[in-house]
């Protein structure tokens, strides 16, 4: 069974601060996806990282996939109140028997105070 450990579970910071959310596993994933989920809605994809060592930037958000494709991080620079929300990492299993099943981490509830 593949597991993804996401940390921290809760993060409360002031506007303008930087933060990092981590996603770790002992399993290899073919890709790692980061989602944001608003209350009452389904998860919405932010980014997919596929190659070990890959770094992707989305404005103030930087996503990294570990060299061994077992871990990933999300770094937000100069957080804004609009970044407040639930962030989820999800891995797509490696190997031919995976039909795109996503394994989710526990999620990080981010609160950015003005």
């Amino acid at each position, binding site marked *: 069974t593949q597991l993804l450990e996401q940390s921290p579970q809760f993060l409360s910071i002031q506007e303008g601060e930087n933060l990092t959310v981590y996603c770790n596993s002992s399993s290899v994933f073919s*890709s790692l996806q980061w989602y944001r989920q608003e209350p009452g809605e389904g998860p919405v994809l932010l980014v997919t990282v596929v190659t070990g060592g890959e770094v992707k930037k989305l404005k103030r958000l930087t996503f990294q996939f570990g060299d061994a494709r077992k871990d990933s991080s999300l770094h937000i620079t100069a957080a804004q109140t609009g970044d407040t929300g639930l962030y989820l990492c999800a891995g*797509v299993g490696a190997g031919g028997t995976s039909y795109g099943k*996503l394994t989710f*981490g526990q999620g990080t509830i981010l609160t950015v105070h003005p």
Partner: protein
Amino acid sequence: EPEVTQTPSHQVTQMGQEVILRCVPISNHLYFYWYRQILGQKVEFLVSFYNNEISEKSEIFDDQFSVERPDGSNFTLKIRSTKLEDSAMYFCASTPGLYNEQFFGPGTRLTVL
């Protein structure tokens, strides 16, 4: 912009009753999924469906659960005899290809009393 829709948004049922949760995936998508999220817990995979059959299912998806794509449009999840622990948000997702983005519906909140 096309989106995945789910009905109802909230379903309340008595323990032991059957429920059917409905999803309309995006029209040209080929792979379909159900996930659930118990309050305060992580999103969990239930089942994947491709080419009119189940391609993968989790341990949660026992013989009380079934899925169907009856008319090429709807994708349904049936729970035959609901238990209290089935109370959760159920999300449907679809994707055009295995390594493409999965698009999630807004979810159905199932409450079993």
